[in-house]
Structure formats: structure tokens, C-alpha cells
């Protein structure tokens, strides 16, 4: 089991730990997942996300390679731009979802911890297969030496401005820049996975404890409530804000068209999986990702979704209590005929049908979309 450099800090803070993607990670701290969620929505949450992977791509063939590799348009990106994208298989299903940062002289790709090995193998094989076409491409896994902390919440930028050598507030959403935060040289991405404003910081791993404890104590000193947040609240925050978690709303069995991610596919360029996406667009998806509001229990992954007549129409891929909108909600893949907002359905919870209704996603509108 891997440990992050903050493992001892998490234990000392009384965190409940559990394995996630090969790492022993904090699930919640003594204040509890619900309160952690609410702190992030009202002030600042700090997330140890060192388990995430970072891949650096350079070389003369890098632009052509990245453009073929990922589904989103990237060749229009300028230095400092950051963009959400998908990594598709030839069959048009989702190997991973990732954030692509264009930084001077390189592409910086942030991948999910659980998919890192597979992503790297896939990237290397694609680069080798097309070396003549793209030109030379260097793919380097920077995950070991790079630490990653997310600082998220309505007061996150205020806190960062106070402790950085440059104004983080001047970075626009979905861009990145360099700054020293508490003296630590960081790549600062104005990105995140909570639906709140904030940043994701990339910096040398040896500075992890210093930056983490420094941000917590600076927050306290300056009267900006700042708390460590575990993976439990990270999941409810992203879920409410309509963001996918690979292995649930996206997977190697799911097409971006089914999950509502056509917007992340640039059909005007060539990318791996495009032919399959076009074929499915032609024939029509047979299931669609919807949000469900459920009463009478907590819907969870794997639960069956039925229509009012008791016929199975789909399956829940994620579900939980949502602390900000105060709903028991699920994401489910259902037949397109019952995917319309307002459709009455049922989720089978412990053998009993619980009333559910299709609701618009996201349940909580991210700040940058307001």
C-alpha cells in the first residue's frame, strides 16, 4: 500500500483511512464528511490528492500526439490554458478522463490514480505506433516527484493571494501559472473538482508537509476557515456539481455520448475513438446518464432502476446524500425513453421500490457556470 507524504499528518489528525487506488487515503476527519463538504462550500477545503498522476509530454511530435490522444480540441490552447478531456479507446469508450495543461515547452496531463499505469502504457504505445507521423515524443511520468494539493472554496483565492508572491486571483478559470505559495514554487491551476472556485497546486513532493500545514495555519491566523477534507466529501462535492468519477459515470464500458460528454469530443479533428463515437452518434445511444432524486433511502452503486410498471430500465452508478442541496440522489444509466427530466421512476433499495424522479444535472451549479 502506498502512502502520501501527508500520511502521518492524516493519522495524527484522527482521519479514517482506507485504500483508494493503491494508496492509504483519508476518507474523513473527525468533523465528518458532511461538515467537510459544507466547509468547502462556505470557506476553504484542502485536499491531499497526491495519488493523482501527472504525465509530462514534450518533443517535436508532442502537439500532434496529444491532439490525437485526447478527445478535446487542444491545438488552439495557449501556454497557461487548461482543459478537461477524455482518453478514449479505439472502441470509443473512456479509458480515463483527464486535465490537459499547456505549459511553456510541454503538455502537463493530470490523470486518475487508478488509471495511471494503463494511461501511460496506452500513451507510449500510441506514440510508438505513430512516431513517423508525429515526430519524436517524450512521455515522462512525473507523479513521484510531483505533489498535488487542491485548495477549494469561495475563500480559496483570497487565502492564496495573501500567501503567494503573485496574484492568484488574476489567473482566469481553466488557466495555470507559476507562483510561490508560502515560498514553495508551484504550478497553480485554477481548476478543481468541487464546483467551487479554487486551485490545484503542483509542487516538489518534499514540500508537501510544509505547504499543507502552512495553508491550514495561515487560514486560521487570517480568520479564513480552512479545513482538511477527505475523499468522502471530495466525492459528494464532485457528485453534486455534476462532475464524473471514472469507474462510475465514465468507464471502459461507457461512451462519452451515453454519459453526456459529447462536448468534450472535438469531432472536427482526428482523435483515437472518433470513428466509434461517430458510429454511435449515427445509430443512437441505447442508454443515457441521468440524475435521480430519490426518497426513502440512499441510492447506491449497482441498485436497479425501474419504471413505474416495475420493468428494469437502468442501473445506478453512483448515489449518496448530497449535503448542500439536501437530497438523496443518484446518477444512473437509463433507457433514453425515460431519461427526460420529470420522469417518475423507482430505485430498488434493499428489495423495496423507492420513488425517484429524473432531475436536471448538476444538482449544484458550479460557481464558474453561474
Amino acid at each position, binding site marked *: 500500500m502506498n502512502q502520501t507524504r501527508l500520511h502521518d499528518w492524516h493519522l495524527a489528525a484522527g482521519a479514517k483511512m482506507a485504500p483508494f487506488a493503491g494508496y492509504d487515503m483519508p476518507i474523513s476527519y473527525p468533523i465528518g464528511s*458532511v461538515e467537510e463538504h459544507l466547509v468547502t462550500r462556505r470557506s476553504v477545503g484542502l485536499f491531499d490528492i497526491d495519488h493523482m498522476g501527472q504525465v509530462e509530454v514534450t518533443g517535436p511530435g508532442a502537439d500532434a500526439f496529444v491532439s490525437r490522444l485526447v478527445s478535446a480540441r487542444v491545438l488552439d490552447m495557449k501556454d497557461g490554458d487548461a482543459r478537461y478531456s477524455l482518453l478514449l479507446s479505439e472502441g470509443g469508450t473512456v479509458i480515463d478522463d483527464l486535465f490537459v495543461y499547456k505549459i511553456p515547452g510541454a503538455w502537463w496531463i493530470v490523470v486518475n490514480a487508478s488509471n495511471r499505469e494503463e494511461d501511460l502504457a496506452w500513451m507510449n504505445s500510441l506514440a510508438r505506433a505513430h512516431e513517423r507521423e508525429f515526430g519524436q515524443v517524450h512521455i515522462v511520468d512525473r507523479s513521484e516527484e510531483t505533489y498535488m494539493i487542491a485548495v477549494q472554496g469561495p475563500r480559496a483565492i483570497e487565502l492564496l493571494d495573501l500567501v503567494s508572491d503573485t496574484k492568484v486571483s488574476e489567473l482566469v478559470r481553466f488557466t495555470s501559472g507559476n507562483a510561490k505559495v508560502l515560498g514553495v514554487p508551484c504550478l497553480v491551476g485554477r481548476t478543481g473538482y468541487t464546483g467551487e472556485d479554487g486551485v490545484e497546486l503542483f509542487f516538489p513532493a518534499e514540500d508537501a508537509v510544509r505547504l499543507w500545514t502552512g495553508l491550514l495555519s495561515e487560514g486560521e491566523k487570517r480568520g479564513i476557515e480552512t479545513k482538511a477534507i477527505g475523499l468522502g466529501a471530495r466525492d459528494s462535492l464532485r457528485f453534486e456539481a455534476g462532475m464524473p468519477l471514472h469507474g462510475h459515470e465514465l468507464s471502459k464500458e461507457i461512451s462519452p455520448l451515453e454519459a453526456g460528454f459529447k462536448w468534450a469530443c472535438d469531432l472536427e479533428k482526428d482523435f483515437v475513438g472518433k470513428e466509434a463515437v461517430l458510429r454511435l452518434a449515427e445509430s443512437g445511444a441505447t442508454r443515457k446518464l441521468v440524475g435521480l432524486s430519490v426518497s426513502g*433511502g*440512499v441510492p447506491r452503486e449497482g441498485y436497479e432502476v425501474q419504471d413505474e410498471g416495475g420493468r428494469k430500465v437502468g442501473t445506478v452508478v453512483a448515489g*449518496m446524500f448530497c449535503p448542500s442541496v439536501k437530497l438523496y440522489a443518484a446518477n444512473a444509466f437509463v433507457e433514453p425513453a425515460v431519461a427526460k427530466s420529470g420522469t417518475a421512476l423507482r430505485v430498488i433499495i434493499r428489495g423495496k421500490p423507492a420513488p425517484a424522479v429524473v432531475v436536471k444535472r448538476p444538482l449544484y451549479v458550479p460557481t464558474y457556470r453561474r
Partner: protein
Amino acid sequence: MSVDKNSRYRSSHEWARKDGARYLVGISDHAQEALGDIVFVELPEVGKRLNQGEAFGVIESVKAASDVYMPMSGTIVAVNDAVSGDPALVNREPYAGGWLVAIEASAPAEWDGLLDAAAYEAEAGKE
């Protein structure tokens, strides 16, 4: 972990406590702590008869759903509606406002077989 001295316990972390002619039933502080934030509580119908060790309801935390079991055989004579509306009450006050059901015991002698506070504390402390 706190224990209520006036209650007796099952190893599965439910407590029972005499309350006039009936018994109140809930889950221990140790159990609520282990479960984490409780977000949903499903309680039985009043009038339902259940044996000791049978599941009478479900507690759902952020991470999982767990059955809760009858510490003593009996009939459900009341359920605590307050925890249905505010499940976190079980986290905050597991022995007081966060009680789950009241039962009329059909075999009051079962009380003697439950763990007293000291024995339960010793057992739960080993987990």
C-alpha cells in the same frame, strides 16, 4: 468512546435501557463513531413483533447501509420520528435524543444476558 451506564448492550453495538414499562433502543457511541455521518434511518412500523437479534431497521451512513438488531425480543411500541428528520441526531446524541425505537419486551429476562456498560466498553475497545 462513551458508554451509558444505565444501558445494556449487544456485541453488535445496540443498547437497551429501561424507560418505565418499556425499553428504549439505540446504537452505541462506538457504533455511530465507526459508521461516520449518518444520513438516513429506516425504522419499523409500530406494532411489529421481532425476536432478539432480528434486524429492526437500517442506518445509512455516508459510506454504507447497516442493519440494526433487536437487543431484546418484543413489540415496537414507538419509533423516534426525530431521527428520521435529522439522522445526524444519532451521531450527536446516541444515548439520548438519538434513540431509535421503544419496545415492549416479550422476554424481559433477556436483559440479564446483555453486556453491562463495563463489559461492552471492554469488548468494543478491542475493535
